[in-house]
C-alpha cells in the first residue's frame, strides 16, 4: 500500500541551524575571552599570529572536506595527501616555484579525481574508496622517500619558502591564502549553481537526480577539490617547514572531519557552511593553544578535549533534529 516518506525536518532544521552554527561561534568567543583573561600570553600578538598560522593549514583541508561532507560523503585520504603534497612540493622545488606548487596540486587533485570517479560512477561507499587512497597515498609517499629516510629539503632562499614563511604585518601568507579560499568557498557554496547542486546531492540524492541535478558530476568535483586542497595544504606546510616531512598528517583527516562537524555541517549531508568550518578550526586551535599554555598538561589532552567537543556537537545535532 501507500507509504509516504514525509521529510521529517520540521522546525528542527531551522533550530539546528541557529543553535549549531551560533553554538560553535559562542563557544569560540567564550574560549577566547576566558583564555585572554586567564593566560596573559594568550592575547599576545605573537601567540595569535602563531595560532592563525597553525589553523590555516587545517582550514585549507577542512574547506574541501566541508564540500565533501555536505554532499553526504567523507574523504579519509586528505591526511595522506597532505603529507604526499608536502614531499612532492619539496622535491619539485628543485625545479622552481611553479613545479613546487603545481606538482602537489596536480598529483593530489588527480587522486581526488579518482576517488570521485570511483564513488560517483561505481557507487562504492566513500568511506571505503577514500580509505583505500589513504593507504595508497601513504604507501606511495614512503616508497618515494625510501621509507622516510630520504628527506627533500627546500632551499632557504627559494621563492617557494617565501610562500610558507613570508608575512604581512607579521601574519603569515598561509593565513591570507586560507582566508581567500574560505571566502571563495563560501561564495561557490552559496552563490553558484554548483554550490546548490552540492546541497541538493547531500540533502536528498534521489530527489536531486529527479530534479535534474548532475549528482555524479558534483561528487567528482568535490572529491577533486578536496584532494587538491589537501595537496595545497601540504605544499604550504612544506614551504613553511622548508622540507617535505613524511610523518606528518597521520590522522589529520579526522581533525578535518571534526572541525567541519563542530562547525555545524551535518555529517549526513545537505547542510553546512564554510564559516562554521572556519569557526570550528578556530575552536580546536584555541583549545590546543590553551593546553600548551597550561604547560603542565600533557599535549595528548588536546585530543581528549577535541573529542569531548565533537561528541557534544554530534549529540546536539541528534537532539535538535528530533
Amino acid at each position: 500500500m501507500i507509504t509516504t516518506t514525509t521529510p521529517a525536518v520540521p522546525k528542527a532544521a531551522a533550530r539546528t541551524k541557529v543553535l549549531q552554527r551560533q553554538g560553535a561561534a559562542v563557544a569560540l568567543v567564550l574560549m577566547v575571552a576566558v583564555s585572554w583573561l586567564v593566560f596573559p600570553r594568550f592575547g599576545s600578538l605573537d601567540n595569535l599570529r602563531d595560532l592563525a598560522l597553525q589553523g590555516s593549514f587545517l582550514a585549507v583541508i577542512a574547506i574541501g572536506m566541508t564540500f565533501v561532507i555536505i554532499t553526504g560523503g567523507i574523504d579519509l585520504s586528505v591526511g595522506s595527501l597532505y603529507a604526499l603534497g608536502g614531499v612532492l612540493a619539496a622535491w619539485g622545488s628543485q625545479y622552481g616555484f611553479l613545479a613546487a606548487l603545481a606538482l602537489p596540486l596536480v598529483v593530489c587533485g588527480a587522486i581526488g579525481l579518482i576517488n570521485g570517479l570511483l564513488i560517483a560512477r561505481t557507487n562504492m561507499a566513500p568511506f571505503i574508496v577514500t580509505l583505500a587512497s589513504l593507504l595508497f597515498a601513504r604507501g606511495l609517499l614512503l616508497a618515494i622517500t625510501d621509507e622516510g629516510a630520504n628527506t627533500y629539503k627546500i632551499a632557504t632562499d627559494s621563492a617557494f619558502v617565501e610562500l610558507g614563511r613570508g608575512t604581512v604585518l607579521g601574519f603569515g601568507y598561509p593565513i591570507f591564502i586560507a582566508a581567500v579560499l574560505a571566502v571563495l568557498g563560501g561564495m561557490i557554496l552559496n552563490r553558484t549553481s554548483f554550490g546548490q547542486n552540492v546541497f541538493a546531492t547531500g540533502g536528498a540524492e534521489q530527489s536531486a537526480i529527479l530534479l535534474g541535478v548532475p549528482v555524479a558530476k558534483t561528487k567528482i568535483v568535490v572529491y577533486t577539490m578536496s584532494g587538491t586542497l589537501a595537496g595545497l595544504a601540504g605544499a604550504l606546510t612544506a614551504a613553511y617547514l622548508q622540507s617535505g616531512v613524511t610523518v606528518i598528517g597521520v590522522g589529520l583527516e579526522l581533525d578535518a572531519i571534526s572541525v567541519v562537524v563542530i562547525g555545524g555541517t551535518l555529517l549526513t549531508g545537505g547542510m553546512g557552511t564554510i564559516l562554521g568550518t572556519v569557526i570550528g578550526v578556530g575552536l580546536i586551535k584555541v583549545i590546543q593553544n590553551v593546553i600548551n599554555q597550561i604547560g603542565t598538561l600533557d599535549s595528548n589532552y588536546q585530543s581528549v578535549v577535541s573529542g569531548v567537543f565533537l561528541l557534544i556537537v554530534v549529540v546536539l545535532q541528534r537532539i535538535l533534529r528530533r
Partner: protein
Amino acid sequence: MPTDPVIEVAGVTKTFAGVQALGDVDFTLQRGEIHALVGENGAGKSTLIKVLTGIHTPDAGRLTRNGHISTIYQEVNLVPLMSVAANLFLGREPRNRFGLIDRARRNADASELLRGYGITADVSSPLGTLAVGEQQMVALARAVEANADVVIMDEPTSSLEPREVETLLGVVRKLHEAGISIIYVSHRMDELYRICDTVTVLRDGRNVHSGPLKELPRIELVSLMLGRSVKEIEKHGTTAFGEGHHADTQPVLEARELTSRPRINGVNVSIRPGEVVGLAGLLGSGRTETAKAIIGALPLDGGTVLVAGKPVSHNVKSAMRAGISMLAEDRKTEGIIPNLSVRENIVLAALPRLSRFGVISRSKQDRIVDTFVKRLRIKVSSPEQKVAELSGGNQQKVLLARWLCTEPRILLLDEPSRGIDVGAKAEVQALIDELAREGLAVLLISSELDELLDGADRLIVLRDGSVAGELEGDQLTSEHVLKAIAAEVRDGSDDHAVSHQNGN
C-alpha cells in the same frame, strides 16, 4: 472532437525479467485535457508513466511526445533541507551581473510565484518546515515554472488533509485553464470525477478502457479496475473456504474509531473468535493502515483497541502481549530474515517465551519448529535450511508459523497470498480456514476480491480511510463490494459517508 495529442503511445510492451508489465498498450493524451490513469496495484501505471517520461525504453511499440513532461510524484521529490526558493529555482537560479546567484531576486520571484498557488510561507526557510501539502504545491509550481506542457501527478493527494486537497485541485484546474495537459493518477473516485475529462483503466498491464470519464458510471469504473463484470452477480459461500466458521457472539477484538490522519478516519473493526473478517477497498483506502493501527504500529489521532473487552495500550509490544499478531504485506522487508534458518525465523517472535534468564531452550525450539513444519506443510530439507532458499509460498508459511507460535488470539494478515504461486495460495487459504475453525480471530487483507469473498465471513469495505460498508451473508458478492466502493460521497468530508448495509 479535435485531436491534438501531446503524448501518443501505440502497442507499447515492456517486460521485466520475464514478467510482462505492459502488453500492447495504447494511450493518447490530448492537449489540454486532464486524463485519469487508474488501475490496481501491479496494473502497470508506474511502468507506463516511466515509459512516457523516458525512464524506461519500451520493448515494442511507438512513442510520440510533443512537449516537455514533468512528473510530480506521491512523495515530494524536493530537497527538504534547502530553502523553498532554492528548491523552486534549483538549476535555473537567477544570476546577477557577476554570474553569481541573486538571492534577493530568487526570494522575491519565489514569493511572487507561490502566492499564485496560495502559499505565503517564508521562502527562505527550509522546505522541510512546510506542510506536506505546501511542499507538493512547491513541486507543482516548480514543474509549471519549468515550462512543462504535460504534468504527471502520481497520487498527489494521498498524504494530504482534505483542506490541502481542495487547494491542490484548485491549482490543477488553473493549470488546466492555462492549457497544460495533465495525467492524474489517483484512486479517489470523488477527485477523479471532479476534475478529470478522460480516463484510461489499466489492468494486468493492459489498457482495458479509454474514454470520457463523465459517461462512465462509477460502478463500471470500479468493475473495470477490479476485472469484475457488473452483470456477473455471483453468490459466494458455496465453496469450502470460508464456510462454517464457528463464530462466538462476543468479539475478541474491537477497534473503535481508529483515526490516523490523513490515512484512516474513524474505522471500526470487530472480530469474534473463529471469524474471518475481510478488509476490502481499493489501493490507498487504508487497509494496511487499519491493520497497523490495530497492532499499534501507526501513530493514532484517536481511537481505542480492545481485546476481550480490555483496552490495549497503543504499542506493538502491548498488542502482542494481548494476543495480536500481524503478518506484514512485504515479506522481504518486514518479515523474513533471509540468511537465518527456518528454525531461527520461526522462533524469533516466540523467543521471550522460550527463554529463561536469557537462555533459550533448544529442545523446546526444535519441538515447536517440528510441529509447525508438519502442520503448515512447509517444504524444507531440514529446519536448518536458510529461508532464502525456500519458495515464496513456503517463506510465507514460515512467517505464518512465526506468528502462530506466539499463540495469538487475533491474527492480522496483510496480503498473505501475494507473490506466491497458485498451489501455495490455495494451501495458505486452507490454513487460514483451519486456524479460524480452531477459534482464531482473523483479519484478512487482500486486493483480490475473490480471495476475500471466498475466505471471509464478513467484509468491511474501506474507502478513502473510512468504512464505506459492512457486508455479510448474502451480501458477500462482488456487486455489493463494488457498489460500496463506488458510492458517491454526498458532502466534501468523507466521515461515514455511506450508510452501512444492514443484514437482511
